[in-house]
């Protein structure tokens, strides 16, 4: 198979498969969880579930100062690479074209050198995150193969994207194809792994805030 054929396959049938698994998987996961339902709370409410839930969805992103002191590396590194992923995925002009094709609308992009810088910072941070996971006793204890696999699937698009953009090592069609393929692998793994947190955390935070809000506590 020639390079361009590989690239066309990656941009064609492979993308279709990955997208299908991604979309179908997420919807199935959501329904699997949501349709289980939960019992209505019969106790007299002290506060509002709705306010509590919505508030926590946002406020849980802002740790209190003492928690921040205790878990500084986790919080800071987490924010850096998530921000990096947000910028490189959603604010790079060629990617926005892809979203425009899928959703029907796009948005302004950031200058490419900015995106490039964020990619580098994210890659470095992710490597630091891995080292931390391997060294911290709690993390080493908690971590399973899935944690390491997800780490790999997350950093690969960043690295291959950087390489493709800077044309390092191979000819352009192969580099681009490998980058797109790495994203497709990520999409396929998404619904079956902890990556689902990207979507389910809204629900989890809502439940947390709702349960506490009912009792009059802002969690």
């Amino acid at each position, binding site marked *: 198979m020639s390079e361009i054929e590989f690239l066309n396959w990656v941009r064609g049938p492979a993308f279709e498969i990955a*997208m299908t698994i991604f979309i179908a998987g997420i919807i199935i996961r959501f329904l699997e969880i949501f349709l289980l339902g939960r019992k209505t709370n019969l106790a007299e409410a002290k506060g509002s579930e709705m306010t509590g839930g919505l508030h926590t969805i946002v406020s849980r992103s802002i740790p209190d100062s003492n928690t921040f002191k205790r878990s500084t590396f986790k919080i800071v590194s987490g924010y850096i690479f998530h921000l990096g992923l947000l910028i490189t995925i959603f604010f790079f002009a060629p990617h926005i074209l892809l979203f425009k094709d899928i959703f029907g609308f796009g948005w302004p992009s950031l200058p490419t050198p900015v995106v490039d810088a964020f990619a580098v910072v994210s890659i470095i941070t992710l490597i630091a995150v891995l080292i931390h996971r391997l060294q911290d006793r709690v993390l080493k204890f908690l971590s399973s193969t899935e944690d390491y696999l997800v780490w790999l699937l997350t950093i690969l698009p960043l690295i291959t994207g950087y390489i493709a953009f800077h044309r390092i090592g191979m000819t352009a069609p192969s580099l681009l194809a490998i980058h797109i393929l790495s994203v497709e692998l990520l999409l396929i793994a998404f619904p079956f792994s902890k990556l689902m947190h990207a979507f389910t955390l809204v629900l989890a935070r809502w439940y947390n805030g709702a349960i506490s809000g009912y009792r009059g506590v802002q969690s």
Partner: protein
Amino acid sequence: MTDFSNGKDKSLAEVLRSQGISRRSFLKFCAATASMMAMSPAMIPKIAQALESARRPSVIWLSFQECTGCTESLTRAHTATIESLIFDSISLDYHHTLQAASGEAAEEAREEAMNENWGKYLLVVDGSIPTKDMGYSTIAGMSNLDMFLQTAAGAAAIISVGTCAAFGGIPHAHPNPTGAYSVYDIIKMYGNTDVDGVSSASIDNNSGGSVKDKPIITVPGCPPIPVVITGVLTHYLTFGTIPELDHLGRPKAFYGQSIHDRCYRRPFYDKGLFAETFDDEGAKKGWCLYKLGCKGPTTYNACATTKWNNGTSFPIESGHPCLGCSEPHFWDGGGFYKALSIPTIDIPTTAVYAAAGAAAAGVALGAMNKSKKSNAAKEHTKTTIDDLEKE
């Protein structure tokens, strides 16, 4: 137009003098060629000497399923361009468009050239070769496939000119109704076939000749830039060897850089300034054409540096995105106006079907979950203080 029918015995120097071309012009051509092929200036005299004294090698040009664009490109001579001089340093013994002869006389000329120069002539091919039904393209009653295999058997080297010969080109595009393939693929598929069933009576198969191991130079492009074609020929004439080729058989001197890496609009790409439509402000300002489907990033050719029409311009400079025409399968890349970061298939439709199917599956699984939970509730026997310890 230069006369190719005789002059086989004259050296280039003699031919040039008879044409009234000064030595100065000739040396300018050699210098231009040397620089195009990234050779040091020290090579210029060597090129000049080689071209002057070379006994003009025989070149047989076979045209199959092609549009003649490659020949048109090569012969685009607005002024008495130096490129046309190349025809004076070769003996073009067979070329459908340029030859004076026709019919049986033309075929005889081909066979005579093959016999006289067996193992030494250059075979240039443009157009792809059909394999589904030999009737799709024949010359003098002979299928393209047979003519190619027969002629290739005695060639010193094969040059596939144009994307059709190089990679299959337009005829090869989905669904490829004629079963068209590139020279390289034809050799892979049929290279072991005996060249039989053809009037080989008039061909002296001197050394047998295996088609499989023929050196192939790929010169893709739709069409290729004129100087690229002549540059390759010049290299061969000067050194008698094939220039350094990339993994697709293309001369690195011309195909070693991507359009993107040499494009004058690259700073706009890097800054993230793109034309959104063909006539918006960005387009007028000459911004990058990535969003309009430019395949520059994945296309290797010399368009951005050498340009067309004697360095006048190239598609991007004229405001049109690069089609990627020197790459294989450029017709099947999802569309010329679909950017590289967009999938070639229709995502929204797929997404809707996936979502619909998933909704059904999800509801079913949700129902299964609920029933499992209520079964657990049914199975549950009230736990009393007597149930807290194991027996």
